[in-house]
């Protein structure tokens, strides 16, 4: 359940942004989460519901934008879509590919007032 730690990091970032920009309330938090990121989205939503209590984001809506998995294969020098860590390269069937997208754990933006 490291999703709680992730939410605490998100709320720390929000507090830092509030100091910098002087807002009083967060209306929406938008996250980019990769398809192959080591996160359970339902657990993340659940953890956010709990950890946001008593913070500037207490009533914030959480929007998660899932980022698709992309890989570059050194064997065939092509790139393509992957959905798990054990998918073969969609072009040559190799397994030595490097993930170029889909590992994101990122705060994209905040909507504040």
């Amino acid at each position, binding site marked *: *359940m490291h999703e709680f730690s992730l939410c605490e990091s998100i709320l720390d970032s929000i507090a830092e942004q509030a100091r910098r920009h002087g807002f009083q309330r967060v*209306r929406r938090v938008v996250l980019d989460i990769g398809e192959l990121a080591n996160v359970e989205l339902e657990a993340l939503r659940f953890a956010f519901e709990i950890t946001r209590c008593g913070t500037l984001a207490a009533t914030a809506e959480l929007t998660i934008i899932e980022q698709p998995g992309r890989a570059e294969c050194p064997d065939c020098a092509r790139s393509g879509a992957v959905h798990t*860590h054990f998918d073969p390269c969609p072009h040559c069937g190799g397994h030595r590919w490097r993930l170029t997208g889909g590992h994101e754990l990122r*705060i994209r933006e905040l*909507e504040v007032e």
Partner: protein
Amino acid sequence: MCTSCGCGHPDMLPAVPLRPGGLVHDPGSGLGPVRRIVLEQDILAKNAEFATVNRHRFAAAGVLALNLVSAPGAGKTTLLARTVTALRDECPLAVLSGDPYTAQDAERIAATGVPVLQINTGKGCHLDAQGVGRALDRLPLPEGGILFIENVGNLVCPVDFDLGEDGMVLVLSVTEGEDKPLKYAPIFAAASVLLLNKVDLLAHVDFDLVRCLNDVRRVHADLPVLQLSARSGAGFATWLNWLRQRCAALRR
């Protein structure tokens, strides 16, 4: 009337697409205009900052720092105790031991005479870079040697938390079953070496070694796999040589 939401507010702005740090009118809750702040920031950016500090400390002391991860009961502590006993006269060593509540792991390492510090994580399911940094203030780094950081027994949560280490040592024991590489693929993808432990029990458990190794290749094609037994010492020479090579590589 406001062209953005039609509320008639005098403080209106044209209905333009939101832009970084820009303002758009919205009736909101009366707290003021709604703003959009574009961050594009890693959720774990703070952890990454602490990890960078740790990494610099390790580099300055010429220390090889290894993050040991496994499920509970894979034999990490037995493996560590045997490893530090074998290497203690060869190079400086130290151990940071993460354990939810007890000091049992640290006591087993302390019995070998190697400096050890316990990090009690409480309900935490992983170590993080800040916790490791704090512990390093109390445990002198083994200059020119190896620091073993024994993570909390967990195949999921430690993956995302960079501690500033040089490599992640993943321990899987044959009593856990051969299905783990696909079930816990992210940690197999992140590992620098896989130690397949308790191979002395292979004859007694239903563990499909061929399938396990094949699945490891599917997740991480180049991952070195060392088969060993921390109990009997089988395969240990290869593991100790792996450590010596990593230490030597650090000095090149």
